[in-house]
Structures are given as structure tokens and as C-alpha cells.
């Protein structure tokens, strides 16, 4: 165990014990326990003492043990908390948003299995010609489009296989090599915001909003976030072009497309198309996106296009990670911990704009160093509680702050540790951390400003 992990272990245990030994005025017994779990999870997530998905599992286990009716503590006669069955906590694993992600994972993994992601990329890239700057835009547009429906990490890895031959043919001293190597992870991070299934923080935020009785349709999310994704993509493209101006005007791009033609592959293309179509048109037909998500799972498994081995290889730990985040939010809300925590600050004196600025900035900073999902999981319960304190305006305010947190989390890309796509790009050895730090900071700050502008000028008009 490294020093950091050991420190995290001690701090986590101390954090867990503090609320149990103290008596905070105005906080229920269950609130104290929820705070213990919150502190333990926060420290373990920050120090990565144990893998982040294990911390999520630990959260759910602690809640079942300490906060459910079947747990070891008898809450009858103790005021301030009405414990629910343990199924409330383990049920987060079948939360509609988890099912939505499951459908997305099956679709994405099947796409990888039949090389649909690679071939689609080659088809989509062909209209972008061979000018260095437009190819870069093409690479970014395709990366963002794919990462809106697939994992940002898998999309980046796939695009790296596309850009390595391009970079290899360029002159060693050409700054555009760095620009291209950065364009892919940045576009993947940005593309993730475009749809609910684009990236896990979106899931945590949407699930938390659902618990407040606020349903967010797939298409509505895209209406809120897609315009921002497009603008940010252009911003990132321009930033990278200016920081790393291409030395040669043209680059060679070899694209040989071999779209697979087996019946399984064709079934996947059709299923992919129909599922995405049904998702984005949820507003017209009203079939919930999590129900649509069952379509690829059913069709691809019953036809054996997606086999038992493929099911085993799904990224299950990501679903655990999200479920833990959702569960943490439930107990913070139900035990009164969240409102107690935000109650200490006179939020009412702040304008709602200030609240959004604070949460946006804190999210951006935290998620540069922590997992984006963890950042969203820690902040969203607090943010949504602000509505009860009057600092935000009802359901509208909840949606605004939810969007601010989810989108700012994805704009954190200054370091290799900020997101897995950044880590992959750095590992190629084409660029140095300082390059990522500079362009990532500029893009992060512009992203945050745009998010705040949207929350004043765009979202209020369409929500």
C-alpha cells in the first residue's frame, strides 16, 4: 500500500468515527450515521484507498447495515428518520438510469465486437478532406459523436488507433502532432455531455433529479447539452490550432473501410440505429429511455450477436460506481444530513447565480483531480438540498444546478489523471503534461463560463 493510500485509510476511519463520537446540534442520529458513511466514502474516493467502485459497494453495504429497517440499529422511537427497507439501497443497482447505461454498454460493446465504431469513424471522416486543420475538426467531431453514445475511454482508445498512423507520418517537430493527440481526448470528454448515457456523471445527476420527482427525457437532455457540446468542440479545436499551429497544410489519411456484412453485424447496425432513434425521439412517442435501453439487450442477446462471454466482459464496475453514488444521495437526503450541511451557510443571501458559480467552479476543480462520477456523487445531494433553503428556485433551480454540476464535471481535463481519455493520450508519449495543462485549463474555464451563460440566457427559455 502506498503512503497516499495508507493516509486515506486512516483519514477514512477517523472520518467515519467523528460523527459517531460527536453530537451535532439539529442533526438526527441517522444523520450522524449518514455523515460517517459520507466522510468514509469521500476520503476513500479522494485517496483511492480502495478502487472507487469498491467504495461505492461499501457505501451500499454500510447503508443496508446501518440505515435500513433490516439493519443493526433500531430507529423506532428515534425522531428524525423513517428507515426504509434495505431494498431501497440495493435497488439502486436496478435504477432506471443504471438500466439505461446497461443498454448503452451492450450497444457499445457490440459495436466494438463487430468493428462498427472503427468503420463508422472511417466513413464519417472521409468528407473532411486532407487539410490538417479540417482533419483535426473531423477527428474531433467523430470522437464527440461516438463518445456521446459509447464510453469516452473506449472511443478515445479507438481514435488513438486512427491518429497514430497520421502522427507517425508527420514531421517530428510539427506542433500539430500534439494538437491532434490532445484533440481526441478533449473531444471525447466534451462529447460525453451530449446525451444522458454519454458519461457516468450525467447518470448520477439524472438519478438524483428523478428522486426529486423531476424526470429528464433523453431528448430534453440533448436539447440542453448538445448545443454546448458543439460550441465547446469548436472552441477546443480553435484553442488547439492556435496553441499548436500545424507546420504542414496537408496530412495523409489512409482510410480503408471494411464494414462487416455478417448477419449478426447487420443486426447490430439496425439495432444501433433504431435504439438511438428511439432515444432521441422520446419526447414524441413517450417510451422512456430506460425501457428503450432493453431493446439492444434483448435483440442482441436473443440472436447471440452478443454472447455470454460478451456479457461477462461488460464494465459492471462502472454500474456499481454509479449505483453507490445514487445510494449515497438517497441517505443524505432522507436522514436530513444534506439539509443540515447546507443549512450552516447563509445561502439565502446569495443570488441563485452565485450558487451556480460556486457549484460550477467547485465541480470543475474537484473533478480535475477526482473521478468525474465521484465529484458529481459528492456534490449533487448538497446542491439539490439548496432548493429547500430557498437559494434556488424550485424544480427549475434543481435542474439548473444539476446541469451545471454534470457539465462542469466533464470539462475537467487539465491533467492525465483528470479523465481516462487524458491518461491514454498522455501515455502515447506524443505530448507532455504541460501541453495538456495549458489547453485543458483554457478549455475548462471557457466551458464553465459558457455553462453559466447558458443557465442565464438559454436554459430558462427552453425548460
Amino acid at each position: 500500500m502506498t503512503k497516499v493510500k495508507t493516509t486515506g485509510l486512516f483519514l477514512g476511519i477517523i472520518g467515519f468515527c467523528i460523527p459517531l463520537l460527536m453530537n451535532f446540534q439539529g442533526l438526527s442520529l441517522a444523520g450522524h450515521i449518514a455523515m460517517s458513511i459520507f466522510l468514509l466514502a469521500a476520503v476513500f474516493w479522494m485517496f483511492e484507498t480502495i478502487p472507487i467502485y469498491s467504495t461505492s459497494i461499501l457505501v451500499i453495504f454500510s447503508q443496508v447495515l446501518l440505515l435500513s429497517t433490516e439493519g443493526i440499529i433500531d430507529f423506532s422511537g428515534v425522531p428524525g428518520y423513517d428507515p426504509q427497507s434495505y431494498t431501497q439501497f440495493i435497488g439502486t443497482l436496478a435504477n432506471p438510469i443504471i438500466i439505461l447505461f446497461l443498454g448503452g454498454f451492450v450497444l457499445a460493446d457490440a459495436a466494438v465486437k463487430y468493428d462498427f465504431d472503427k468503420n463508422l469513424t472511417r466513413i464519417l471522416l472521409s468528407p473532411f478532406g486532407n487539410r490538417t486543420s479540417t482533419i483535426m475538426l473531423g477527428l474531433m467531431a467523430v470522437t464527440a459523436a461516438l463518445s456521446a453514445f459509447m464510453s469516452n475511454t473506449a472511443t478515445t482508445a479507438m481514435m488513438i488507433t486512427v491518429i497514430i498512423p497520421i502522427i507517425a507520418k508527420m514531421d517530428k517537430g510539427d506542433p500539430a502532432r500534439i494538437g491532434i493527440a490532445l484533440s481526441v481526448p478533449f473531444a471525447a470528454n466534451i462529447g460525453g455531455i451530449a446525451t444522458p448515457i454519454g458519461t457516468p456523471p450525467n447518470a448520477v445527476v439524472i438519478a438524483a433529479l428523478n428522486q426529486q420527482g423531476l424526470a429528464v427525457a433523453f431528448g430534453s437532455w440533448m436539447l440542453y447539452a448538445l448545443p454546448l457540446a458543439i460550441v465547446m468542440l469548436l472552441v477546443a479545436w480553435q484553442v488547439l490550432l492556435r496553441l499548436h499551429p500545424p507546420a504542414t497544410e496537408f496530412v495523409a489519411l489512409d482510410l480503408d473501410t471494411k464494414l462487416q456484412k455478417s448477419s449478426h453485424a447487420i443486426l447490430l447496425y439496425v439495432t444501433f440505429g433504431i435504439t438511438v432513434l428511439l432515444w432521441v425521439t422520446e419526447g414524441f412517442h413517450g417510451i422512456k429511455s430506460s425501457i428503450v435501453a432493453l431493446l439492444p439487450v434483448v435483440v442482441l442477446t436473443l440472436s447471440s450477436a452478443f454472447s455470454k462471454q460478451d456479457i461477462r466482459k461488460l464494465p459492471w464496475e462502472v454500474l456499481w460506481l454509479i449505483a453507490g453514488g445514487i445510494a449515497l444521495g438517497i441517505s443524505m437526503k432522507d436522514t436530513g444530513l444534506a439539509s443540515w450541511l447546507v443549512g450552516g451557510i447563509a445561502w439565502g443571501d446569495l443570488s441563485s447565480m452565485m450558487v451556480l458559480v460556486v457549484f460550477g467552479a467547485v465541480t470543475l476543480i474537484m473533478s480535475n483531480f477526482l473521478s468525474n462520477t465521484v465529484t458529481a456523487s459528492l456534490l449533487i445531494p448538497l446542491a439539490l438540498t439548496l432548493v429547500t433553503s430557498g437559494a434556488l428556485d424550485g424544480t427549475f433551480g434543481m435542474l439548473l444546478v444539476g446541469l451545471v454540476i454534470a457539465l462542469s464535471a466533464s470539462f475537467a481535463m487539465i491533467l492525465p489523471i483528470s479523465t481516462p481519455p487524458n491518461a491514454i493520450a498522455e501515455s502515447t508519449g506524443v505530448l507532455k503534461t504541460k501541453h495538456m495543462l495549458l489547453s485543458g485549463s483554457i478549455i475548462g474555464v471557457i466551458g464553465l463560463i459558457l455553462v453559466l451563460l447558458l443557465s442565464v440566457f438559454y436554459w430558462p427559455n427552453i425548460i
Partner: protein
Amino acid sequence: MKHKIYIFVVEDEPEVLDAIVRDLEEFEDIFPIEMADSAEEARDLLSALIDEGHEIGLILCDHVLPGQNGVELLVEMQDKPSTAETRKVLITGQAGLDETVRAVNEADLKHYIAKPWKKQELVETTRKLLTDYVLEQTENPMEFMSVLDSERIADFIRKGRSITDN
């Protein structure tokens, strides 16, 4: 000390040994190179490295050595669990058919480089075999991307077999 994956070279002629190590320079930052001039010395160094917690990713071994020969050393390594996965290459001018067959059958020989070798062949073989090794034997092959076959490693990540979104 951080756990490392070593490249091991066994060669009794100092000039030849130098030439091999020079050709493999580009890997040295990430895969330290250890050398021995006889099978006996190699055996001691190998067990010392493994005792310190390191791994041997690749061994490039001459056949004709003073004392025990190269093929015997490779077969011996194949029989030990700690070096069974090490990718094994003969780099020699003088291994006969029988011995080479034995190396293929009993030491899972991955490649035979005839002396005199071309730098490109040596580098490409090393890159391919070390990439095979890290993809099969390590949890996070991403960290080796800068010196190995980055396309293959990226494709491995694409298939979701090491890191995912978080």
C-alpha cells in the same frame, strides 16, 4: 524500488553484447536492460531480479556460450513458473537444427534472429514480443504505450480490457 519489467541479454562476446544493448536503447527508459556473459551468471542474475520483485519480459540469448549453452538456459527458464511467460529469443549464428527445434518445442521460442542481425529486425521483434507480454501479463498496459506498439495497446483498451470511464 518500483517493480520493473526487464529485458535480459546473454552474450559472451563483449562487442556483440554492446551492439545489442545499443540497438535496444529506445526501450531502456521503461524496460531496463540486464546483461550476462554466461548461462551461469544469467541464472544468478535472473533469480536476484525475481527475488527483488521484478519480471523478465524478454530474453535475447546467444546459443554458444562458455559452459551451459543458451538453449538449455531457455528450457530451464521455461520450466520455472517465474520465467515461463518471459518471451524467448535466440540471437545466434551457430545453433543447429536439433537445438533450435528443442528451443521451439521445449522453451516456446518466439523468434530466431540470425547473426549478423539488422537493427530494425531486432527492434521490431523486441517491440512485438514486449507488447505481447504486457498485454497478457500486466493489468495496465497503457503505461507502456510510448515505447511499444501503441496501436495494439490502444485497441486492447478499446475492447474494454483494462480501463473504463470513471
